[in-house]
């Protein structure tokens, strides 16, 4: 941004395009994180404040698989999927399931407790150091007509979108997927037609955790990891869920892309840490004016 006197600014168009592209690529990852949060929220009616911590744990898992075993972060996704599916189910079975009937004060406090616990577990086990991995392709950049597209960011976005698409098909076509969607719409009805709601809850939480952990793996090649990483993503994930529409799958992807771009542009135009204000203001406005999200309340 070049100051032009009298308060006018000329903004480099290239800079805006560059920020938009980076934002879109990051937005795919936001979308995947939000899909997990949205699924848990939609099916169980629980806001999982510890969702960002799952991203952080997924990232650490990929980090250690790389540093100790030399497994590429993109390959470690396949290891993370079963680990975090089981982890998510355990969290559901041991913690969330027991407060399903409690008031939502308690539900929120429980997931906040889990957030504090996991964050500080990471701090205790792996110290507060910022860690990142050096990969042969970490700094690879494609030059497309003067715009720089970072390879790991592109990969992250692509993987996120592929997983999202796969999950979408799974939810639409498979029996379990349909049962999960049935529970989102009407729990008692689902139970009446013979769906084991308790099992569906376990599945939904497992899948939600996997989304977060896989997003973490895809972030690792270009993003640092530290115990407080979760708090970077959790608010953004809420914004994306509300923006995209609660219980709305494609909306979460769209919301992720929008917020990704909004934050990237906010970084260009606003000083310091104010970029987050953009998404928070969008969040509040959406809550006020479109509480059912951009796509309207239709649950798929």
């Amino acid at each position: 941004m070049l100051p032009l006197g009298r308060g006018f600014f000329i903004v480099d168009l290239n800079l805006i395009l560059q920020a938009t592209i980076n934002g879109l690529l990051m937005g795919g990852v936001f979308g995947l994180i939000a899909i997990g949060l949205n699924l848990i929220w939609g099916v169980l009616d629980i806001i999982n404040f510890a969702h960002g911590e799952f991203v952080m744990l997924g990232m650490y898992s990929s980090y250690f698989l790389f540093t100790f075993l030399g497994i590429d972060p993109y390959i470690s996704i396949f290891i993370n999927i079963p680990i975090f599916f089981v982890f998510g189910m355990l969290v559901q079975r041991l913690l969330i399931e027991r407060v399903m009937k409690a008031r939502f004060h308690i539900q929120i406090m429980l997931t906040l407790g889990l957030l504090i616990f996991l964050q500080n577990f990471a701090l205790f086990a792996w110290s507060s150091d910022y860690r990142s991995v050096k990969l042969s392709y970490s700094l690879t950049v494609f030059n497309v007509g003067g715009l720089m597209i970072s390879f790991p960011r592109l990969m992250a976005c692509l993987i996120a979108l592929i997983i999202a698409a796969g999950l979408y098909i799974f939810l639409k076509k498979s029996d379990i997927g349909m049962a999960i969607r049935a529970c989102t719409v009407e729990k008692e009805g689902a139970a009446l037609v013979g769906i084991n709601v308790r099992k569906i809850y376990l599945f939904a939480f497992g899948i939600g955790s996997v989304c977060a952990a896989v997003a973490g793996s895809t972030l690792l090649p270009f993003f640092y990891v530290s115990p407080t990483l979760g708090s970077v993503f959790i608010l953004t994930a809420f914004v994306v869920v509300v923006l995209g529409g609660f219980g709305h799958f494609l909306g979460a992807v769209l919301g992720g892309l929008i917020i990704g771009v909004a934050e990237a542009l906010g970084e260009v135009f606003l000083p310091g840490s104010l970029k987050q204000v953009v998404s928070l203001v969008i969040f509040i406005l959406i809550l006020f004016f479109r509480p059912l999200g951009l796509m309207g309340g239709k649950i798929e």
Partner: protein
Amino acid sequence: MIGKRFLAPKIIIPILCLILLLFVPLFVGTYTLHMLILIFFYAYLGQSWNILGGYAGQLSLGHGTFFGLGAYTSTLLFIHTGLTPWLGIFIGATLASVCGIFIGFLSFHFGLKSHFFALATIAFAEIFRLFANTIQWVGGAQGLLVPLKGNNLFLFQFVEKEPFYYIALGMMILSMGVVYLQQNSRLGFYFIAIRENEEAAKALGIDTLKYKILATAISAFLTALGGTFYAQYVLYIDPPGAFGVLVSVEIALRTIIGGTGTIFGPILGSFVLSPLSEIIQSVIGVGKSGVYMMVYGAILMIVCLVMPNGIFPYVRKFFK
């Protein structure tokens, strides 16, 4: 007959407790006093939160907004104009109240409920934190040091802990008084009606929007008073310590653990949780990074699992 009424345990026990508490500083050391100040302080904040979160039933996770506004307003006025925090405290509280009315009006006008209201309040507090973090005039990320002018009652500064002890005790009793009055007035019944069934309350002719905003304003005012007290006691404030999500959670936590919508809930929650966190801290030590907060998180989860209605119902059952 009057004598009999005054000898009823319901009246005599609190009076005995109060007398006992008034003489405590004569017998205990600085550390215990510090712990008691924290207990009273968090009980006070919890009680302030209780009006909105407990009685009116609107779960706010953004009381850091009001806390921070109180702390920052009085401190900035003190630094830049030399205004005594005794006056700044009320300017900050009024400002927080106005802000509460603004947030309350917007949120409730647009019909935000439960989860969505909680998320909106977090968003507002985060916006305040980010601005406080960026604007250098209010200290930026480094925060603000309250200039120490020595023992000065007029400037709300004391070297000893005793004055803070009595102020914190007074604030706790004040908040109990406010909640007691509210609980036994028309206002309190309106709040509870809104919490239990808003549609029915509306049908009975209660202006639910007005009373929810009123609850927010009262709650914000009291919380901001706590903010100034904190700034004067610790002599330092920074954006995460004033507006941060964890501050908001701490404010709500004591009451939720103790029992929401009850006058003794916040007190009970604070008397259990505040010493507990101090004790874990001294047993494990803050030095071993993470362990203390890990245990804290675990305790939080256990309480949620074991006592989903808070501690108060168990205590009440025990005494009955």
